[in-house]
């Protein structure tokens, strides 16, 4: 009997499967759609003119990060250090579609890309800088759903042209003054690119007579003739790097002009001119992050600081000339809590120091403005303090001051310094501000800022 019982227990033990309730987690269990390429979009077919009575001015903020790609204004106009008893001089405000697209300014006109939900259309809207009166708008019908905002890019503007990049990678080139349509490219269709998560964040670049765009897909980067829309060069993309939210930054090192681009997959320097234009000068996959929004910060000694959010942290690369190309060395990398790191905004490089706002996963200094020395970006020189946290808001420099908009719409005026946080003044400039993430723009003393739904213009002149 005992033997029989032992045999039964043994059989039960042998046949017992303690993992019988386990289920496997396999790809595809979310029933994800195929995500096919969308409908054909007729770029530039919609146009409305409202007025032509703007006041011409002289200064410009012609693109993302301004004239010199460093977010520092060279304007000689003295600006306010304090708002005074009457508060900020908000000249006008305009309601926009939900988004984070910043403005470009050109001699008295403000250009901003905006998605109109009711008309289901992307529009490049042109406003008077001094009055906010809309002059005209040019756009195209395209279906975009809210996804933490819709439009999120800054147009590139020259004396004659405007180039925009829409939420679903539609590039549109217009005549700057009349708004006449010149040419368009559907990057998703033409290059089989993947629209980045939460839509396009890359701000287009105009370099001379060439529009430079990072496409991902079948090409990494393309150069397009501004006048005709003809492709001048295409950089191959054999590794299948994807378009990121980062924007292309021109950089000259050791006498060589190049475009530095931080893709999803890697970072590369592409020759900007000469017969080698469009050729890869250096590249590395050491920097391979899922979501990259800030642009690379290229420093005169060949160091490149790159950073990204979503747990990525930062990395510092160093370029060394090698024949007609460059060797790239990864000096070090770290997690977001290990030094300067940013989720959306690109840090400022000023007088040998870098300034940026740490992300929410940046440890005890999260959301604080910090200053580091590029010799070691892991060592924080100073931080703004636990009472001064700014979120994902934008910041730039003008008239030797830092203007910083926190994500709730409060504008801070700071004294830039490598020795500590020095606040001069602050004021709420957007009532009930929410997700004020768009880059700021300044020309002729007028600051254009926005939160997710409202764009405002503040007169900062002394």
């Amino acid at each position, binding site marked *: 009997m005992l033997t029989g019982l032992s045999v039964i227990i043994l059989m039960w033990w042998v046949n017992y499967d303690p993992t019988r309730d386990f289920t496997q987690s396999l790809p595809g269990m979310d029933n994800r759609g195929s995500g096919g390429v969308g409908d054909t979009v007729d770029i530039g077919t919609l146009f409305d003119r409202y007025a032509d009575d703007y006041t011409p001015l002289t200064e410009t903020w012609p693109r993302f990060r301004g004239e010199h790609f460093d977010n520092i204004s060279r304007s000689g106009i003295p600006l306010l250090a304090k708002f005074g008893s009457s508060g900020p001089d908000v000249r006008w405000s305009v309601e926009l579609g939900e988004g984070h697209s910043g403005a470009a300014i050109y001699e008295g006109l403000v250009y901003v890309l905006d998605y109109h939900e009711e008309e289901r259309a992307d529009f490049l809207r042109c406003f008077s800088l001094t009055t906010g009166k809309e002059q005209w708008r040019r756009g195209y019908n395209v279906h975009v*759903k809210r996804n933490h905002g819709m439009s999120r890019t800054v147009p590139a503007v020259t004396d004659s042209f405007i180039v925009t990049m829409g939420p679903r990678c539609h590039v549109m080139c217009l005549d700057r003054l009349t708004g006449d349509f010149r040419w368009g490219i559907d990057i998703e269709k033409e290059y089989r690119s993947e629209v980045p998560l939460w839509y396009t964040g890359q701000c287009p670049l105009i370099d001379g007579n060439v529009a430079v765009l990072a496409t991902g897909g079948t090409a990494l980067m393309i150069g397009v003739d501004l006048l005709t829309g003809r492709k001048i060069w295409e950089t191959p993309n054999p590794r299948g790097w994807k378009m990121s939210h980062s924007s292309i930054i021109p950089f000259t090192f050791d006498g060589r002009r190049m475009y530095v681009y931080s893709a999803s997959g890697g970072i590369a320097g592409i020759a900007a001119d000469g017969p080698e234009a469009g050729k890869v000068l250096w590249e590395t996959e050491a920097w391979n992050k899922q979501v990259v929004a800030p642009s690379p910060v290229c420093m005169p000694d060949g160091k490149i600081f790159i950073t990204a959010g*979503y747990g990525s942290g930062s990395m510092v690369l160093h370029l060394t000339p090698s024949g007609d190309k460059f060797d790239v060395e990864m000096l070090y990398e770290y997690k977001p809590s290990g030094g300067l790191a940013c989720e959306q905004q690109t840090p400022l490089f000023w007088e040998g120091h870098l300034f940026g706002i740490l992300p929410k996963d940046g440890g005890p200094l999260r959301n604080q403005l910090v200053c580091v020395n590029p010799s070691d970006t892991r060592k924080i020189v100073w931080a703004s303090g636990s009472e001064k946290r700014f979120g994902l808001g934008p910041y730039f420099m003008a008239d030797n001051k830092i203007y910083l908009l926190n994500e709730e719409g409060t504008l801070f005026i700071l004294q830039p310094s490598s020795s500590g946080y020095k606040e001069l003044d602050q004021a709420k400039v957007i009532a009930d501000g929410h997700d004020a993430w768009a880059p700021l723009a300044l020309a002729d003393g007028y600051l254009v800022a926005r939160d997710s739904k409202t764009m405002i213009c503040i007169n900062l002149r002394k």
Partner: protein
Amino acid sequence: MENDKIKSRREFIRGGARISLALAMGGIAGFAAAGISREKWVWQIDPFECTQCGRCATECVLTPSAVKCVHAFDLCGYCDLCGGYLKPNSNALSTAGENQLCPTSAISRKFIEEPYFEYIINENLCIGCGKCVKGCTSFGNGSLHLQIMHNLCVNCNQCAIARSCPSNAIRRVKASEAYLVKGDFTKD
């Protein structure tokens, strides 16, 4: 005289018993009435104070913990890249086990339409570790957050998690308002 004395003693004892009984009944009735009218208090997590330290999973007297993740759907961005569902820099935005942040796969995701995904917590699998909450708070809208579930909680006189909570995020709340769910509950 002797009889009167005896009678008086008996009456005294009877009277004392009656008074004791009346006092006892009154006390019971008083306690019952107090129990009905006085609000019961229970433990709950203030999601705005929680720092997702992970102690809710390990300090609760219950195994698994009475703390579970809850999802405020009206705050969720329904993102494809969800910081509460996917590990940072996961190799794909997929449901593969190696990409999931949750150690017990307690979050399932469902494609709704481009570009939206819905995230649903399986309470039976959730151990209250807060990893998803940390990811959602750091990179998203903070719609995932931890709550003490009162169908599980034994309402200890001194909550073991509250005692070890580094941010003092756990406090007594009225049983009639036992949950501090984001969206309904906002921090001033």
